[in-house]
């Protein structure tokens, strides 16, 4: 019973914390949509955030103490870029990179 209470409260708290981060800008900046600064951030922030997410998560998926530091994630990462520039098909790029990464991790090639 105590466990049921805990997991219920846990899910409620995680849901609330997550929703709070998403709704706050809409509560406090609603009247400033036309402000040039808000428009500036709206135009350029997405690209900056995507680039930093890609960089950080790519770094975290690599093993830096391996004989070729970072190569186990860099090779699949470059594969994603190459396939995406070549075919422009997101599915193909993502699966190619993921399969390559899984193969490398599971076989211990790098």
């Amino acid at each position, binding site marked *: 019973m105590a466990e049921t209470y805990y997991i219920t409260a846990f899910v409620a708290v995680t849901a609330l914390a997550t929703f709070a981060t998403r*709704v706050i800008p*809409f509560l406090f900046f609603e009247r*400033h949509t036309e402000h040039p600064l808000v428009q500036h951030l709206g135009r350029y922030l997405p690209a900056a955030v995507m680039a930093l997410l890609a960089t950080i998560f790519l770094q975290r998926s690599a093993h830096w103490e391996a004989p070729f530091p970072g190569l186990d994630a860099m090779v699949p990462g470059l594969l994603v870029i190459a396939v995406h520039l070549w075919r422009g098909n997101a599915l193909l790029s993502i699966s190619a990179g993921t399969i390559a990464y899984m193969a490398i991790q599971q076989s211990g090639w790098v």
Partner: protein
Amino acid sequence: MQRPTFRLTLPILFGYVPLGMAFGVLFTTQLDYAWWIAPLMGVFVYAGAGQILAVSLLAASAGLAEVFVAMFVLNARHLFYGLSLLGQFRGAGWRKAYLIFALTDETYSLLTSRVRGENFRQEQRLDFRISALNQLYWVIGCGVGALLGQNVAFDSTGIEFALVALFIVLTIEQLKSLGASSLGIRSLGENFPVWIGAVAAAMAMMLLPSAHQLIGAIVMATLALLLQYRRSRQTAAKAGQDCHG
């Protein structure tokens, strides 16, 4: 109308199902709770990195205050996402609450980079359908993964790379929508946000412990964009003065 929507969300389908499955497998193999709590979290929490963090918090039976702070900090990047969608979501009525609730990294990048038509209301309805489809994929992934983790032993090592690959693809798409030519050196001018993001990430990784790198990099990138905004305003003001003087 429906087919293009589905096609738009296909990359998310192939990113979210495996990632949701990774979370589900993690949930049932690490914890003793019922499997269906995993998809339930997909419905009510709906945050990739957040839910994976939640598994380790649950495993440690963390206090609820600590859980709130940890989730808030991890998801703090969303604070900045809403800024670029204030106008786009305006007047969306009952759909607006859901659009805000469902604003994940991937939905955000899809909604900000897709081609938009003239009809504002119709585009909002399309935003809503995209958001709902994305969450559906996520919940399915969480559920299937939880059941798999409970019943089948299979080597899914490395499947989480789908998330990294997705972010790389979305960065390239952002570059395209900023009007750059491929990974272009030609139009370096419009590529600067990508460089700002990459440099901010590199600095955060060198200077901060891993728990604070994401928010640290986002703060640095936002500051850089603010500085750049101020400078461009000053240059514009000066140019205006020169004209009149």
